[in-house]
């Protein structure tokens, strides 16, 4: 049996959904109040539906592989694309809906003091981070650490120790800045998720479908109607939702201009489909592809710039000063100390993620340059790759994901061997380099996702900071004459 990466992804998703479904169905957890995923549907039911969809699509794909081993039957191509799309939708559900739900559940369980359930959700969140994102243990921010930090920040407004109120006033501007930046990060993350949704739930499928229409002699009416209905759904589900996210967020017009652009592309696709004209469809999809690539990168860039400037050190200083004032006899001291420790770990984790992201981005740019230079200068790999390889191996060293195992165990040694071999021809080197780059790109992608997840986790700091600012305002407001 040849196990492909797709199989591993399906197995991971299956295991995760099964465990979450069982957990959500257990009596103690079914009492925890979570915002329902849809009217009249519980999370347990939705997770079971997703698990059923995943297994049905994997099963259908497996049957199709048996019927068309060499993927040469064009009549089965659409069916294959639909099934792959079905699996991608489950994967998107896990990234965009289930992960935040688990974090919400984690906070609710912590608040309810259900420690054994908290540990199980912790384990699931870690599995999500380590298997879906390929993070080495200890990397990332960690929902449990944010929750511990939140407990201490929440305590600050309840302390009646002399001097604490003044400390809070001194740091008011930092608390406000942190809230503003977290809100901005959350908006960028929300918009980035919409582009992810657009790519994996619509664009990939639509692109393959229009590609087949162009290859066929006579596309059918149904083919065009299909494109038109997809354009409508993108407008309803991505354009409208993105507008809701951006509303009131004070983003600059340049940061959200793509939403209007996407709507124009949808109109182009709809009109092309209505006129049974393939040219606007092809043009629209090229535009959509460009938009997804450039806007995702830009949103990422802005998000990282904000993450780097997040004033977590100010929050740490505020906690340190309060701990000094509180003294050793106060019952709340252990909570405050744990909270400070957790906040420092969150800070370190975020810095590490941002640094690793910077390095990956630089490496990715170098590898892209080498790939472009390969076309006219085959020696560029031998000259420039070894230096980048050292950086890539350092970045992948602690990772246990399949891409890292292949990169370290197969791709890098093979490329090194080929570069030493004077008889190796250029196409072989180019193929080996392409495989290497594909797996390195997967590492960069996973780190990107990890940073986005970290932004969601940091969102947990917002609520206690909001309460704290409300408390500072109420205590410093001048008394009416």
């Amino acid at each position: 049996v040849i196990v492909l990466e797709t199989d591993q992804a399906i197995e991971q998703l299956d295991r995760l959904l099964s465990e979450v479904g069982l957990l959500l169905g257990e009596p103690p957890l079914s009492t925890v109040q979570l915002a329902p995923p849809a009217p009249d549907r519980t999370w347990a039911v939705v997770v079971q539906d997703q698990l059923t969809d995943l297994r049905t699509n994997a099963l259908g794909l497996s049957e199709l592989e048996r019927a068309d081993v060499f993927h040469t039957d064009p009549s089965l191509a659409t069916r294959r694309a639909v099934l792959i799309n079905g699996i991608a939708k489950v994967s998107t559900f896990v990234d965009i809906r289930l992960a935040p739900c688990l974090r919400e559940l984690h906070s609710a369980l912590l608040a309810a003091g259900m420690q054994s359930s908290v540990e199980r959700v912790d384990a699931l969140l870690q599995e999500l981070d380590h298997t879906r994102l390929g993070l080495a243990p200890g990397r990332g921010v960690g929902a449990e650490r944010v929750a511990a930090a939140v407990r201490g920040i929440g305590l600050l407004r309840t302390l009646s120790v002399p001097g604490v109120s003044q400390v809070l006033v001194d740091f008011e501007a930092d608390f406000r800045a942190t809230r503003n930046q977290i809100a901005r990060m959350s908006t960028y993350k929300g918009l980035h998720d919409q582009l992810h949704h657009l790519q994996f739930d619509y664009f990939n499928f639509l692109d393959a479908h229009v590609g087949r229409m162009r290859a066929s002699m006579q596309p059918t009416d149904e083919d065009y109607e299909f494109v038109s209905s997809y354009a409508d759904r993108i407008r309803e589900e991505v354009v409208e939702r993105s507008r809701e996210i951006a509303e009131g967020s004070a983003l600059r017009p340049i940061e959200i201009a793509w939403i209007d652009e996407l709507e124009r592309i949808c109109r182009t696709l709809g009109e092309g489909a209505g006129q049974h004209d393939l040219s606007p469809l092809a043009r629209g999809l090229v535009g959509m592809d460009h938009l997804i690539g450039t806007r995702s990168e830009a949103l990422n860039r802005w998000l990282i710039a904000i993450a780097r400037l997040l004033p977590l050190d100010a929050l740490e200083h505020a906690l340190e000063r309060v701990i000094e004032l509180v003294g050793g006899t106060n019952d709340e001291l252990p909570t405050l100390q744990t909270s400070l420790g957790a906040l420092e770990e969150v800070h370190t984790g975020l810095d590490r993620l941002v640094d690793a992201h910077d390095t990956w981005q630089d490496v990715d740019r170098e590898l892209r340059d080498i790939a472009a230079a390969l076309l006219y200068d085959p020696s560029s790999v031998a000259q420039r790759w070894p230096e980048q390889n050292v950086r890539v191996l350092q970045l992948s060293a602690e990772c246990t994901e399949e891409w890292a195992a292949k990169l370290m165990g197969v791709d890098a040694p093979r490329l090194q061997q080929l570069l030493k071999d004077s008889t190796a021809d250029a196409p072989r080197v180019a193929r080996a380099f392409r495989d290497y780059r594909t797996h390195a790109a997967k590492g960069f992608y996973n780190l990107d996702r990890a940073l986005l997840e970290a932004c969601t986790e940091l969102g947990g700091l917002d609520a206690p900071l909001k309460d704290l600012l409300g408390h500072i305002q109420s205590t410093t407001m001048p008394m009416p004459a």
Partner: protein
Amino acid sequence: MLDYAESSRAEAQQLAEAIAELDGVLARSPGAEAEGMRKRATAALVELRASLEDLNNVEKADIFGVDPSLATRRHVLLRLVEQSKVTFEQDILPALRDLARSSLQQSRQNPPDHVDTSELPDSAGEEAPPEGWSVDRVLDSAERFIGDGDRVVGLVPKVLSIVHALGMLASLVPA
């Protein structure tokens, strides 16, 4: 690519057989809870068998799985089979496990009178001890099966472990 189709179909077939066995055990188990569980298990069995039967008919008509006119029907039936399996795995199996645990606990607290050896399940692979079955031995054996149900991998082995545990418990005659 792993052959999900073959392993999943075989699992569905084995699950249907395990549920049929479970139905027989629950019919001998006392209490309203067992009766309610039997109804749920029977409903799941009917759905699973009907979908498997329909799927077999589709496959007879389209051996290579390439007929586009049957593709949607095949997909819907595959989904129904998978849905039955997921429902069993996520809803019914945890409830069965709870039922087995509570029956065991109850029998430990209020020891039954004796063991009706004619009711002991022969499919459980439990050899009769040389000194014969006693209430304590049956309870120990049931406890071991419940523990196995937590440890073993795969839906069918988990169900069978619980079926065997419930079968052992059903052979106990109350005082």
